[in-house]
């Protein structure tokens, strides 16, 4: 049986359209890399200055000057380019990256995202997350539905400092796929074997669920 993370990643891979430019955030999203078919014409952008990352073969000696923004050694696929940090973020601010996948500490039903700071506990700096969140048209959050204490991460309103307001398009957890709409969080898919009541109980946000249209994943 796939782990929760594998389930999230397999579902997330279905969001990617051939021909797109995709950014993968540090942590779980970076691993989405391995779920995209190698023959798929997608260019993975990494904000440290590369468009066209591809996973390294396990036995390949890494090129020490080729990393992604998470610090992993990468290869470059045909059509790849490398560039400076100003150009990399120009690409982001001009919305030339089609979709970004990001982790979250908290996300809420208005589409607000908090994923960079826990005051007093964790504040290493925002890195490139703010500009990606604010300017990339489609932002897909990949995260566990609840934190390690079981508390909901999908909230009515974020309590932590925001990465960007009203930036999230879609949320994929091990329990559900949710779309941010003007009316609130609409559940598109629910995990195989999970019932709606259990999903609601694990979620603080109000969920819009149309049983007739509910998918499984």
């Amino acid at each position, binding site marked *: 049986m796939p782990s929760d993370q594998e389930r999230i990643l397999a579902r997330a891979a279905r969001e990617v359209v051939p*021909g797109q430019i995709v950014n993968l955030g540090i942590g779980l999203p970076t691993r989405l890399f391995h779920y995209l078919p190698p023959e798929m014409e*997608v*260019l993975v952008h990494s904000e440290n200055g590369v468009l066209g990352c591809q996973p390294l073969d396990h036995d390949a000696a890494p090129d020490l000057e080729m990393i992604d923004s998470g610090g992993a050694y990468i290869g470059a696929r*045909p059509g790849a380019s*490398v560039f400076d940090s100003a150009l990399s973020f*120009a690409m982001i601010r001009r919305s*030339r990256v089609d979709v970004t996948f990001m982790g979250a500490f908290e996300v809420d039903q208005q589409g607000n995202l908090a994923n960079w700071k826990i005051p007093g506990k964790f504040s290493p700096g925002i890195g490139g997350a703010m500009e990606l969140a604010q300017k990339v048209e489609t932002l897909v959050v990949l995260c566990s539905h609840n934190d390690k204490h079981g508390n909901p991460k999908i909230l009515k309103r974020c309590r932590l400092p925001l990465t960007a307001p009203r930036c999230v398009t879609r949320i994929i957890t091990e329990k559900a796929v949710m779309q941010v709409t003007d009316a609130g969080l609409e559940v598109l898919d629910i995990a195989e074997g999970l019932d709606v009541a259990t999903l609601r109980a694990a979620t603080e946000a109000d969920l819009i669920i149309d049983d007739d249209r509910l998918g499984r994943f």
Partner: protein
Amino acid sequence: MTLLNQKHATLEAAIAEIPDGASIMVGGFGSPGTPFALLDELLAQGQTRLTLIKNDANEPDIGIGRLIRAGRVDKLITSHIGLNRIAIEEMNRGRLAVEMHPQGLLAEKIRCAGAGHYGFLTDIGLGTEVAEGRREIECDGRTWAIEPAIHADVALVHADLADAYGNLVYRGTAINFNPLMAMAADRVIAQAFRVEAPGQLAPASIHTPCAFVSHIVEVDPATSEQGRRAHAV
């Protein structure tokens, strides 16, 4: 949305997407870097009431000079039009609105749009005629002028090499405004003398990454203005 694998286009199809009244950035400083094939197709298709943004006005009988002569340009945002006497005459007769900027500020205003900012703060031109009409602001005890970014609907650029995804490599002094304009316009149509398969261009040699390019059109150097003649300039 980007569709990397669907950028290769014919001259006709690429230019046909430009409507009347469009604002169009045009690469080139003099002839090098001017996308002559794209401009000649624009002339042939007949779009009118255009706003052009180009460093210069080319010469009367080539490039944007032909569009100006044909009365298809309402407004030109530029830096220097000294080599196009027709453009100067049209300006003096009030038939062509011309907005002039110092060359480096023009480049930065375009680059600023390409970087996704509103504008920048400069000391260039303070104490001269160029400063007239600009909004100024005090920062750290000094005066700075606000220079707003310049956007456009379309950019027409000329590259030496491209790949099918739209990565571009320029050559010589044909670089000039091209990479800046490719960042600043909503739709970017690039002509190139050769279009290779993805993977044929070295990643660190690419001047304009494909993310900025909408359409790529291969043009024959032998039939292009660039290849046909040595210009006065």
